[in-house]
């Protein structure tokens, strides 16, 4: 099972899924609550979202565990349930996974900072991610995806933690802001710095997700391709979110504009594509058509 995702990558462009948070909110998820809790309290809703992505054509769906590391869960008072919630995230997704498709364990950032900016040590981060990875592995994900990382140091802690917990392949995607000087993470890591460090640490598949819309992500993929021979993951946002006074969140990049850039994104070197915040199964459906046509 472990090698098949690599085999699929060799054959054609792999399609990941789209936003989970957006889909949860559509189905009544209250802003500010803990999404991972729905894996045990509202599993049918979560499963329906996974199903809709598989049906739209996703080869890989990500577990509803983005905020599931122990430190992030502790902010909701749920740190002690880290293993349980992650195992549930993986288990319920597997219940709807069609044959021949894949399930990735999503591991997003802690939301806290390492010393000296924050209070945490590398070991504490590592342990927080390890606990999460144990749960995801127990629930039988096919591989892990450490994503939306904005601090290279934290990404490396997550990597170590994941590898302590299991033998599954671990992929890593960073999130970059576009500045007049180029693409950098929030903490100031450059693209080349990130790719170099991740490669040195034997990450087999890497890339970027979030923050950027599909046009910006297409530019970033070109830069990444020049810097690494490894397979590249690219999952762009549907633009930036804005909040209406009624409390509705809308994203600035519509479906047509978003998918318009996908052929070039693949041409520029993305081997695995999907969508991040603001995207939904419609985006994935269109991307599946595009990949088929290539």
């Amino acid at each position, binding site marked *: 099972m472990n090698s098949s995702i690599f085999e699929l990558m060799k054959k054609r462009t792999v399609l990941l899924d789209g936003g989970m948070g957006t889909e949860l909110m559509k189905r009544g998820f209250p802003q500010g609550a803990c999404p991972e809790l729905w894996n045990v309290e509202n599993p049918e809703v979560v499963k329906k979202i996974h199903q809709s992505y598989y049906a739209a054509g996703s080869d890989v769906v990500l577990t509803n565990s983005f905020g599931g590391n122990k430190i992030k869960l502790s902010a909701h008072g749920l740190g002690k349930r880290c293993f349980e919630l992650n195992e549930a995230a993986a288990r319920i997704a597997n219940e709807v996974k069609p044959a021949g498709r894949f399930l990735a364990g999503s591991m997003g950032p802690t939301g806290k900072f390492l010393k000296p*900016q924050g209070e945490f040590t590398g070991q504490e981060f590592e342990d927080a991610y390890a606990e999460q990875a144990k749960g995801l592995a127990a629930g039988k994900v096919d591989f892990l995806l450490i994503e939306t990382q904005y601090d290279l140091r934290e990404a490396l802690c997550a990597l170590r933690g994941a590898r302590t917990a299991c033998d599954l392949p671990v992929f890593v995607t960073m999130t970059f802001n576009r500045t007049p000087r180029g693409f950098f993470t929030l903490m100031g890591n450059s693209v080349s710095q990130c790719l170099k460090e991740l490669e040195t640490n034997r990450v087999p598949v890497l890339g970027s997700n979030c923050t950027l819309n599909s046009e910006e992500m297409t530019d970033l993929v070109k830069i990444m391709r020049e810097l690494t021979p490894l397979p590249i993951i690219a999952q762009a946002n549907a633009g930036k979110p804005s909040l209406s*006074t009624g*409390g509705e969140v809308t994203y600035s990049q519509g479906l047509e504009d978003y998918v318009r850039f996908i052929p070039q994104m693949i041409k520029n070197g993305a081997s695995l594509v999907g969508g991040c915040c603001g995207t939904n199964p419609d985006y994935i459906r269109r991307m599946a058509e595009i990949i088929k046509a290539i």
Partner: protein
Amino acid sequence: MSQEELFSKMKRAIIEGDKEEAAALAKEAIDEQMDLNQVIEKGYIPGIQKVGELWEKGEYFLPELITSAECMKAAMEVLQPGLEKAHIAVKSLGKVVIGTVEGDIHDIGKNLVSSILSANGFAVIDLGADVKLEKFIDTAEQEKADLICLSALLTTTMLGQKKLIEMLKERNLYGRFKVMVGGAPVNQKWAAGIGADGYAENALTAVEAAKHLLKK
């Protein structure tokens, strides 16, 4: 050293993230009995403004922002007693409860607003960051505050500003306190739409807005 030179050194200390220098220069300003409002406005604030520009340009990132904010804090800690002394004779322009909305840890801008309001004659109760909405209201009631200032830097936490106003209405307190909102994703349209009394883009305009709102 001339005033101009001192201001220039203060600006540089903030930009370079030199905490000791920022504090030392603040002490010098006190020893020289300088106008501390001027010191903040012409010395330190230009420093933090430049840091903001460097952030926009992609030359400064979060670590630099945090270091510069700490320098600003160090300077303000030295200046605060001097600022308070200068205002003992002056009647307080009003009581302000300020904080960053729950779920949000961003506080650099909020800290600046807090310090500048305090420096300009307001009695400020700074609740910090990630403050529960109830705490803003309970504190304002307890302390008989005039103004509640809410900071939010995320689209997700901005909603807290709207929720707080709804809570004031539920508790029949809407209108008892003036509410001013701020933060990068916030704007005048949002403020008006949620029923806030005021909006300010930065610490300096916040003082003017607060003075205007609380004019007796």
